[in-house]
């Protein structure tokens, strides 16, 4: 048995450092690509795709908290996104002339968006989470539709017409780090007593209750956290698109997120990241085929369901640490092989 280690275990520390360097490397690579003008006139366009990919990652990963870890479906994720988008846009519209630097304004927008969506999440979650499975899925659709109808009827949100003139505060470099922070928080949540409890509820809620777990509390908590990040995603969306209409956040958009969760692998956050990146970047890269995008999604989805029900990545988490370890082991092996040869 290990001695009781009060501090962070060393291997964890190493793995965190490796991951930080990995993320930094990706970021610097992107900065290099964009700033060197390597892409020429297409830089802005590609940056835009990357921004889209970033908020899609937040949306898909947060939905995965529900679908993959809690084992329940939400088909109303776009509804929470719209709450974040509209609430943050209203606040920044009010604050825009007050001399607050853009960066802080953007932070305020994210926080407002997140909390507004989280509050909605609590309001929806407490009644809705008494249901499970397909009934819950359908109730989340109903709530999202009600939210959409509400935004169609409010004066501040454009009375059903496009709400435009939102300040463009999203900037790819900021959005990238927001995404990193969001995904990290979700990852930490999943790998804690909270995530463990939520997984237990997914496996067997009766046994979870019999193990002293307040099932309702943890379900609502997860639902709220998921909604919070959807709101953050929505805030980015609003301040990147600068104009939006409630029908943007319809059932189809929610379904698209769910599709990406499932294809990426429900229960794998890295699967969500990879899935969201590819599925939002690929069709943009092949513009002429964009009308086939959802068609292809749906076919892939059916094939995944038939042949690989856990999604492409399943619950497998991509780990930089593991790959580095394997590489090191290989190098060592190689060296010792060489030594044997020499001797």
């Amino acid at each position, binding site marked *: *048995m290990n001695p009781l280690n*009060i501090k962070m275990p060393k291997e964890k520390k190493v793995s965190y450092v490796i991951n930080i360097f990995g993320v930094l490397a990706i970021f610097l690579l992107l900065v290099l690509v964009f700033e060197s003008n390597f892409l020429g006139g297409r830089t802005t366009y590609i940056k835009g795709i990357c921004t889209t990919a970033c908020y899609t990652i937040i949306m898909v990963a947060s939905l995965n908290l529900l679908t993959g870890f809690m084992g329940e479906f939400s088909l109303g994720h776009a509804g929470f996104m719209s709450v974040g988008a509209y609430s943050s846009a209203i606040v920044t519209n009010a604050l825009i002339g007050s001399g607050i630097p853009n960066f802080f304004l953007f932070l305020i927008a994210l926080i407002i968006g997140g909390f507004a969506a989280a509050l909605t999440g609590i309001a929806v979650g407490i009644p809705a989470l008494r249901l499970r499975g397909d009934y819950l899925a359908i109730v989340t659709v109903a709530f999202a539709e009600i939210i959409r109808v509400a935004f169609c009827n409010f004066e501040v949100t454009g009375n059903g017409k496009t709400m435009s003139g939102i300040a463009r505060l999203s900037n790819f470099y900021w959005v990238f780090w927001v995404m990193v922070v969001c995904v990290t928080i979700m990852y930490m949540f999943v790998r804690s*007593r909270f995530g463990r409890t939520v*997984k237990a509820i997914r*496996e*067997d809620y009766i046994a979870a*209750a019999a193990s002293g777990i307040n*099932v309702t509390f943890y379900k609502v908590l997860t639902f709220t956290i998921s909604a919070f990040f959807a709101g953050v995603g929505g805030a980015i969306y609003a301040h990147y698109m600068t104009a939006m209409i409630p029908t943007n956040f319809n059932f189809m958009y929610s379904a698209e997120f769910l599709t990406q969760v499932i294809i990426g692998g429900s229960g794998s956050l890295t699967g969500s990241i990879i899935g969201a990146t590819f599925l939002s970047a690929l069709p943009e890269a092949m513009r002429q085929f964009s009308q086939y995008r959802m068609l292809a999604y749906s076919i892939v989805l059916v094939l995944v369901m038939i042949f690989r029900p856990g999604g492409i990545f399943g619950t497998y988490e991509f780990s930089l640490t593991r790959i580095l370890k394997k590489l090191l082991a290989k190098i060592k092996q190689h060296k010792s092989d060489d030594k044997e040869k020499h001797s």
Partner: protein
Amino acid sequence: MSEVKKPVLEVKHLGITFGGLKAVDDFCLEIGESELVGLIGPNGAGKTTVFNLLTGVYQPTEGTYYLNGLKMNGKRTHQVVRSGIARTFQNIRLFKKMTVLENVIVAMNMHMSYSLFASVFRSKKFWREEAEIEKRARELLEIVHLEDKADYIAENLPYGQQRRLEIARALATGMKLLLLDEPAAGMNPTETAELLDIIHVIRKKFQISVLLIEHDMSLVMKVCERIQVIDYGITIAHGTAEEIANHPEVIRAYLGKEESEDLYADN
């Protein structure tokens, strides 16, 4: 074992009605400290319903029950468990896709206190609690002889080990009263003997009381200090093993009259 102890569990006239049918009626029971009581009865007699009542899965329509003098009526399952009643299930209910160790740790969640922020920032408290809990979970696994299976996925364990894991998980809640629902069902004699050993060890080590539902009469007779027999939701006898074995009502319920064969058909 006739000395009088302060009752851990006190059940007074508990009853529940499902759509006009009395599933359990006027159920009374007292369990003293570290006592082992058996609850037996034919199939469909209402034994599991009693467990469901005692753990807040169902709310009783009549009667009250107390744990260490604390009224338990109206508490939800997780609250009952926190007060100190834990159970196992007749049809094993493990967290199938999680590891054996995780199965135990989940039940210790209520003894952990680090906050959401602590988990996000991976504070010192986080690491300390996680390490402590893991250590305790491994100790519990040792008691049920599963210490070398800690990293197995629960559903891959053989049947008998799954039942033992359920016991470890129940122990992890830190309860005072353990309800075992047919723990030996489907076990072979060696496994049953091992199970009895484990029950013996945990009673001695943790000073807990046990209420045991069991189908296997010989097992109940062997280990239980007192036995209560129910049939059709009604208590028909209680007493020591010897008294029960010779009780005419019990013999009738178990061996059955000609016309009561359908008793065994429903489950």
